[in-house]
């Protein structure tokens, strides 16, 4: 283990180097460009054995990854925003064919208006594609999560997206600890694919037409495989904790034991919110934080257990569903808690779209609001757009 200074992108590229995948096919896009730029330098310098495929689009990038994965390779790529949107069609193909490809992703707003900064609309728009999703709060976590996600993906045959917040994490230099190459290799082990198109002794047909008689059965089987991801994740995360000393639960709780109210959010904002929790705690206020790290699959029971102990919860969503009903985390959280006898009052704060800065005072205001909700025993305003001009 050694201590280094790296940005989120450098950390993810370094994790990819230590993973040493068989194939990386990628197309550059701000702010994830550096991940493959740095990685391609590792390839040029002979520091990895990877076949690097420079393609003409993200659609082609993930398509090449699908081919390499069907051939039995350990495969990774990297993208962001519009790039993920262009991959959208192939996301489903990778997941449906059970190809454990891992994407090192940087969360960036989807156009229009065109923007290169952080929100979660790109990955939230891909929730139903059948990929595991991990939202990281800092560079250290991005580095660790790529290694964990690769192992979980390969064990479950479910592909994974590991994401950081554009610029806030991707371009900010942080201190982090990295493992030795050999430790990473021992941890992930040799990849043993369930099938390989290069297995000439056992020829198979990949991706055949599947109509009314079998499509539903194949989807049902995929849903069942997906339901095993959380259990595998917990096991692998604990193994990783033994190796590194860093444990990443699917759902993180911060100072929640005696809290009356909590913010439920993801990404770098969760780390910022911890500062606010600490400050408010010094004032004697019983506030806590729950951070969603895994949002696909949903750690439903953990979320129910964590959130039902509060009187009020403010979800902070960094994207909107365009359903006229707030953000995706809010919508799904309310759905998960519907059957709980004791449930908190839940409000939504859509914030930070297009990289709009989220300040400590903004987060403190959310805590003020939900304490007020608790006092009143009812919600005055269900959905608030936080930090946008023209909004009260």
């Amino acid at each position, binding site marked *: 283990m050694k201590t280094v200074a790296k940005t989120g992108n450098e950390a993810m590229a370094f994790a990819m180097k230590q993973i040493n995948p068989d194939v990386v096919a990628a197309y550059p896009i701000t702010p994830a460009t550096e991940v493959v730029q740095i990685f391609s330098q590792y390839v040029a310098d002979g520091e990895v054995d990877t076949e690097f495929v420079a393609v003409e689009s993200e659609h082609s990038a993930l398509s090449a990854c699908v081919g390499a994965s069907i051939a039995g390779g350990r495969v990774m790529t990297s993208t962001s925003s519009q790039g993920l949107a262009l991959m959208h069609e192939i996301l489903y193909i990778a997941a*449906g*064919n*059970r190809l454990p490809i891992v994407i090192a992703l940087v969360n960036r707003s989807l156009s229009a208006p065109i923007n290169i900064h952080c929100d979660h609309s790109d990955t939230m728009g891909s929730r139903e594609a059948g990929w595991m999703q991990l939202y990281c709060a800092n560079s250290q976590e991005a580095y660790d999560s790529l290694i964990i996600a690769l192992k979980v993906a390969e064990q479950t*045959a479910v592909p994974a997206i590991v994401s950081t917040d554009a610029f806030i994490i991707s371009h900010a230099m942080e201190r982090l600890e990295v493992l030795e190459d050999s430790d990473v290799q021992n941890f992930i082990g040799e990849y043993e694919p*369930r*099938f390989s198109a290069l297995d000439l002794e*056992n*020829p*198979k*047909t*990949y*991706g*055949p037409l*599947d109509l009314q*008689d*079998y499509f*539903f*059965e*194949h989807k*049902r*089987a995929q849903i*069942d*495989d997906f339901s095993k991801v959380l259990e595998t994740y917990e096991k692998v995360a604990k193994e990783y904790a033994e190796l590194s000393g860093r444990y990443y639960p699917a759902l993180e709780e911060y100072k929640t034991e005696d809290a009356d109210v909590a913010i439920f959010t993801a990404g770098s904002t969760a780390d910022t919110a911890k500062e606010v929790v600490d400050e408010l705690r010094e004032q004697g206020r019983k506030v806590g934080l729950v951070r969603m790290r895994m949002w696909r699959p949903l750690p439903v029971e953990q979320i129910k257990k964590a959130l039902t102990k509060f009187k009020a919860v403010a979800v902070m969503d960094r994207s909107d569903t365009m359903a006229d009903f707030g953000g995706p985390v809010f919508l799904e959280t309310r759905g998960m808690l519907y059957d709980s006898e004791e449930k908190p009052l839940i409000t939504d704060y859509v914030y930070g779209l297009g990289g709009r800065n989220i300040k400590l005072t903004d987060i403190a205001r959310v805590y003020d609001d939900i304490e007020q909700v608790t006092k009143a025993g009812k919600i005055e305003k269900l959905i608030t757009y936080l930090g946008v001009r023209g909004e009260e």
Partner: protein
Amino acid sequence: MKFDKLMTWKELPAGCLIDEPSTSLRFKTGDWRSMRPLWNSEKCIHCLFCWINCPDSAIKVENEKITGIDYNYCKGCGICAEVCPPKASAIEMIREEK
């Protein structure tokens, strides 16, 4: 893979794949034909042009000799009739209803 009855989702192999070769032989695909090749055994010179050009496996061959058309797989594309040497003209396309 079992083909005698429809499998449940729990019986399927991992991934949406067919885990053995040549299973398409069990899937008859000749029933949407509108034109049908008629092969004349007396005119045929057994050059095998039709066999090598058939996009499916509809030309039946035994001991390097054409023995007929397998209508279970023929979709009536007419390539066999097109590539049959004009001097032989052993394959004629006729409407399916005839």
